[in-house]
């Protein structure tokens, strides 16, 4: 049963088309990742799903609600963790949660009963009465996650939940999200971290220039889009080396500055050649989602 269905969604700002005919289906209880380079249309898509930006054309349905017409009703059962923390700096941790719960029209007893569990989930129990400016970046992020759960949402929307966090804080957010997935929540997240998407998401969509370019499970995407082995070769001489050998020993290769990426089904031939030289360093690894992402969206910098 699909919880979210998006059909031919488009958004145009004057001459630029930010989202172009996007189709998405997100099932109840799955963790769905929306990936794409900066400016691909991820945030605009999320805002349209929440009814905060009106689509130029297309249809959105969340549960039984049509968006944007019934967005207010739909948002009653959605929790949102925005890209930038927007906690209220004048309030304590608990007061932030309590005030936010009031925006959903929840009564104070219900909110107060939920707060200890949310603080426990996000590891903030000892910070219950702290003021926001005294929290670290990771704590603020976790509190923002706790705040998104105050209405016990069926759907949780996370816009780059771990951007700017250190590895410890990132793992803390991930373990929180995993517990939510186990509870049967539906999660929609956008991220730049392929590792995050690969760890958490059941299915993903990669979008670029406002269009869907691939969708599937992380494993299927890796299997269908790229070769299983990657050998990264570094060194000043790598361009010259690539001219001589890349064509014969790689199924596919990409040269980026002083790094050559060789994609292979069987890397034994390549490794033998590399072992018999000393000018170039190399790293052998299985291919991953980042390889898929870079293949599909290119290596050029985005704004």
């Amino acid at each position: 049963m699909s919880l979210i269905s998006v059909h031919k969604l488009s958004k145009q700002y004057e001459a630029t088309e930010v989202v172009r005919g996007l189709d998405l289906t997100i099932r109840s209880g799955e963790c769905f990742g929306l990936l794409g380079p900066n400016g691909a249309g991820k945030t605009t898509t999320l805002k349209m799903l929440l009814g905060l930006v009106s689509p130029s054309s297309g249809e959105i349905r969340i549960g039984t609600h049509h968006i944007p017409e019934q967005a207010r009703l739909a948002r009653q059962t959605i929790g949102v963790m925005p890209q930038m923390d927007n906690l209220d700096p004048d309030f304590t941790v608990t007061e932030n949660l309590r005030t936010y719960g009031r925006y959903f029209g929840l009564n104070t007893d219900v909110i107060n009963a939920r707060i200890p569990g949310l603080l426990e989930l996000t590891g903030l129990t000892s910070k219950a009465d702290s003021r926001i400016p005294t929290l670290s970046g990771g704590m603020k992020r976790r509190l923002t996650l706790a705040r998104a759960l105050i209405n016990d949402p069926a759907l949780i929307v996370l816009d780059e939940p771990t951007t700017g966090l250190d590895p410890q804080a990132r793992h803390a957010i991930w373990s929180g999200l995993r517990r939510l997935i186990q509870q049967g929540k539906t999660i929609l997240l956008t991220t730049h971290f392929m590792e995050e998407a690969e760890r958490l998401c059941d299915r993903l969509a990669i979008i670029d220039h406002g269009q869907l370019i691939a969708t599937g499970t992380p494993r299927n995407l890796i299997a269908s889009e790229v070769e299983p082995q990657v050998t990264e070769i570094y060194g000043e001489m790598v361009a010259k080396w690539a001219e001589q050998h890349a064509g014969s020993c790689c199924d596919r290769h990409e040269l980026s500055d002083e790094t050559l990426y060789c994609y292979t089904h069987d890397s034994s031939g390549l490794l033998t050649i590399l072992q018999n030289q000393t000018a170039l360093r190399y790293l052998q690894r299985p291919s991953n989602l980042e390889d898929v992402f870079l293949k599909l969206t290119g290596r050029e910098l985005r704004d």
Partner: protein
Amino acid sequence: MLGNLADPIFYMLGFGYGIGSLMPHIEGVSYLSFLSAGSLCYSTMNSASFETLYSGFSRMHVQKTWEAIMNTPLTLDDILLSELFWGATKSLLSGAAILVVIWGLGLEQDWALSLWAIPVAFLIGLTFSAMGLVMNAVSPGYEFFMYYFTLVITPMVLLGGVFFPTERMPETFQSVAACLPLTHALQLVRPLIMGHIPHDIGRHILVMAAWGASSFWLAMGLTRRRLLR
């Protein structure tokens, strides 16, 4: 809050006693008493303006509190309406505080009548909150608000009759003043402090309400365009 109150009280006492000692009575009362009604309107206007401009802008643009609220079932229109009433509430508090000072100094002529200044303060608050929200909607940053204060608020204070009666001004100034909301606020509040029922009550309320309503309508349109694109 303290800044919005202390400033008009200091002006009222400083000018009231200082200039007042050099002056004959105005409209049958001491200058201090005349000025006290002006100070009430001035502080009421300032409270709503500061609240919607600086504090409102912080909530909208800097702390992104509005964005957080829009992710709940509330909408931008709900938020604007809340800001409108919150600004007016701050005005009500400032107006009431000045009124207490007026009572303390015994500047009012009829205590019961002066109580009517409180609902008027709320109306002034609504009007200037709405006007402030328009500025908020178009402002790129805090610096921008100085233009509003120097080009809109200050002339309005000087023309509207806060410090001296509008009737002493050249006629052109008087006709400009007749269109401004603060002038009408004063024409309600001053008689109430001086102990008589204002003339043309309906017209004064209507002018302020018209400024308030049209500003709020404009603020909604401009803010939607700013945040909901």
